[in-house]
């Protein structure tokens, strides 16, 4: 069995290896950050961590002050007790799965991941075999099965064009790191101007710097937002004046949780677009079968039982790791 400790509200520490995964504090010497979403960042903003170059840039924008040693995908880092390599996770720009080779065996910690990968990430790649697989399971039920990106992107474009044809401003509610850029990438071929809410623009600049096409975008501007533009903003602005000031609008909620029909009435939106940057139930089971782990550890999940049941039927052992789930969608 894997020797681990749960630290803080989301981190995992491997004490024998002196390694921390998305953890914070002095429990491990070497701390690896999988990606720049708030629920995976260390609470201590001044410590030393390892991360990919893109994650490093995004962490700085989000206020991380500590020392970051950047590590490229595929670059092996040799530590006293283990060798560590990062694998592209397909979740958001810079997102990495953390692979650890040691006497304990081969451990893979997924952070948050998505396969098929989001087109605005470095892709998705995993080691062929893993002994201990520590996986997220944000969408752990067979009601969750994602459509191919191209189909969803077409839905996004159609929604934007139809709204503009009706003389309405299309508004996409989505998380400002990851989802926002996917939607912008989908809209890019339309050559429209996309306005993005305050904090989001700087994050978009990092994507552009790394060579991803997000189309023409600018910061939200109250005076011009209704001039045939598209608005991208987090769900928290739903009841803010920013939205109520738009005279004629059509609202879309872009999230994995948009798979629940009840969200339409609950949020009062026109369109639910099911686009998630997390792995769906079926891909999760498939990858577990593929890498044949001795043990699957299920984290970041509302309910691990159904995944465990399906894995059990395939002869794969699994246990839940009771980290609190703080879903970012």
């Amino acid at each position, binding site marked *: 069995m894997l020797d681990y400790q749960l630290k803080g509200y989301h981190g995992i520490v491997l004490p024998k290896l002196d390694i921390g995964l998305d953890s914070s504090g002095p429990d491990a010497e070497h701390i690896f950050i999988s990606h720049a979403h708030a629920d995976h960042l260390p609470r201590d903003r001044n410590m030393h961590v390892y991360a990919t170059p893109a994650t490093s840039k995004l962490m700085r924008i989000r206020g991380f002050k500590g020392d970051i040693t950047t590590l490229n995908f595929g670059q092996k880092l040799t530590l006293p007790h283990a060798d560590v390599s990062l694998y592209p996770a397909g979740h958001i720009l810079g997102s990495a799965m953390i692979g650890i080779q040691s006497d304990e065996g081969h451990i893979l910690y997924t952070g948050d991941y998505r396969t098929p990968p989001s087109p605005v990430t470095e892709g998705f790649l995993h080691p062929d075999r893993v002994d201990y697989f520590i996986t997220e399971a944000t969408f752990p039920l067979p009601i969750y099965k994602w459509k191919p990106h191209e189909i969803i992107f077409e839905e996004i474009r159609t929604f934007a064009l139809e709204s503009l044809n009706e003389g309405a401003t299309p508004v996409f509610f989505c998380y400002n790191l990851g989802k926002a850029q996917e939607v912008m990438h989908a809209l890019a071929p339309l050559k429209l101007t996309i306005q993005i809410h305050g904090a989001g623009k700087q994050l978009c600049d990092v994507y552009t710097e790394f060579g991803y096409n997000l189309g023409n975008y600018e910061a939200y501007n109250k005076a011009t937002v209704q001039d045939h533009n598209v608005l991208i903003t987090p769900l928290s602005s739903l009841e803010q004046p920013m939205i109520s000031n738009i005279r004629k609008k059509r609202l879309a909620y872009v999230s994995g949780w948009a798979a629940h029909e*009840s969200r339409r009435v609950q949020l009062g939106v026109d369109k639910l677009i099911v686009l998630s940057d997390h792995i769906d139930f079926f891909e999760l089971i498939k990858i577990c079968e593929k890498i044949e782990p001795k043990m699957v550890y299920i984290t970041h999940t509302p309910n691990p039982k*159904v995944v465990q049941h399906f894995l059990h039927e395939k002869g794969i052992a699994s246990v839940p790791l009771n980290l609190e789930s703080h879903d970012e969608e």
Partner: protein
Amino acid sequence: MKSEPNYNISSFYRFCTIVQQIAESRGSIKKASLFANYLKSLQESTDIALACRFIGEGAFSTVSGKKASIGHRTIAVCAAQFCEIDYDLVFKPCRTATGSSSETIEKLMENLPDATIKRTPKGLSLQEIESAFIQLESISKRTEKEALLQAFWGMMTPIEIKYFIRIMGQGSLRIGFEARSIINALSSAFDADTEKVRYAHMITGSLEKAALLAIENRLNEARFRLFHPLAFMLATPSEPEDIESIQDYIAEEKFDGMRCQLHAEGKKVKLFSRDLNEVTDAFPEICSHFESMHLAPIVLDGEICVFKENTILPFQQLQKRMGVKKPTPKLLSDYPVVFIAYDVLYHENETTFDLPLNERRILLDRICLGHGIKISRQMEIQSADQVHQLFDEALLNGNEGLMLKKKDSTYEYGQRKKTWIKIKKPGGSLDTVIMYAHAGSGKRGGTYSDFTLGISVKDNPKYSEQFIPIGKAYGGYTDDELKKINKAIKPLVVERFGPTLSLKPGIIVELEFDDIQINKRTKAGYTLRLPRFKAIRWDLSPNDADTLEDVERLYQARLNRKRRDQKAGNSLIDYGIKDLD
């Protein structure tokens, strides 16, 4: 992925895609125009009528009295079996996540390879779907019903399966498109006068029938026929202080019984319940009483109550009689019922619903006096204070509250704002624990505003859990209180599925309700009528929560509450008493 068969104009699949579009569009005008265009595209009037029935009534017309009668659980178990998944281990958590059984089934049918392989969509027509419902209704054996259900699902796409299940439930399709909008769609599709379609709906009690009359340009023929129920007029709840010119209303006590429409002519009597189903056989003593009067053709609106030793007994006792088609002599003598009239809708070959209430009342009074029929007592009112006084009297008489009716109002079906008003008071309260929080809707979107409340069963050997649900509440708190709850639930979250949070017991709510009823289908065995927040008891802990035994005690107390003798004629005038003396 299987390719979809060539769906034609009158296919059920096409109907379902339109229904989905209606669900996905906002505003009643847009929804109505989508449906109107769909109706216009249909060639046969049979299909138009079926589309109206399926979207507004169910598998069977509401006035047919028929139901496919397959329970929610049977459908869910059947679907789990079809998809080859474990009902408890897999289906139930999925349903918890979506909050809807039919939506869960739609998704599982779409996603699970074991389910997709069994389905070969046939592009069934609306008429084939109707015959499927008829077949399901005609079979009584459960196993055969299940097999048939699965066979039909095998010929459908997931979206067809979802709406097939919702239509079969005879309830709302949950697409925000109700009778009023369907009537608007119908009138615009067939260039018919909206008021005439509405009238036809009231007369026939059926959207399907109203549609047929509209298509065939026969709305003028929509005429009342005796022994065919009329849609009921309903009341809006309010407070006496909120009513303008209160002296324009008269008051009646609100009986704690079952609404009933009585049709009679000579020796023939029929009774209809509020959902327009015939309930004649359940109440033979009322029928024989009215048969003996040899009435000229008449329709009365009124209430059925259990009435014993001159006392009106609680609804809970009437429940023993409801749905029992051939009551035994013992049941009849234990729970004798009476019909108390309060309106007349048809008399001697004339409809009277277009007359003002005070004129209908004069007529009703004359008829009841002449035949010894019990009638509600009416009281003039001058002020809100007086309403409060009358309200307290009504409770002493064993009734629920008061009805205020506008004196000059005509009888119109549905809920006409502030024409009929009901005034009620809470039936009691319980200290309960918040078990689940659900994300709110509309202007409450983004916060958790709906809550499932539980009572304690930790010392009850029949249950393995600590708390079981007793009701779901979504109101009664202030904005500030709601903010405070939303903060307090954060550390209590155990599980989270998008809009639903499962919580550790921690927050105690004093829950107010109108009434307690026995309901064997729930875990507690009881349901609360209209549960809502009274107060959040930050001073209490889960150990202080009320128990199932407390619910039982409250139920019994309400049941056995003292009720005044009606000899004095407090709530009703019994024109029959003279004859008995």
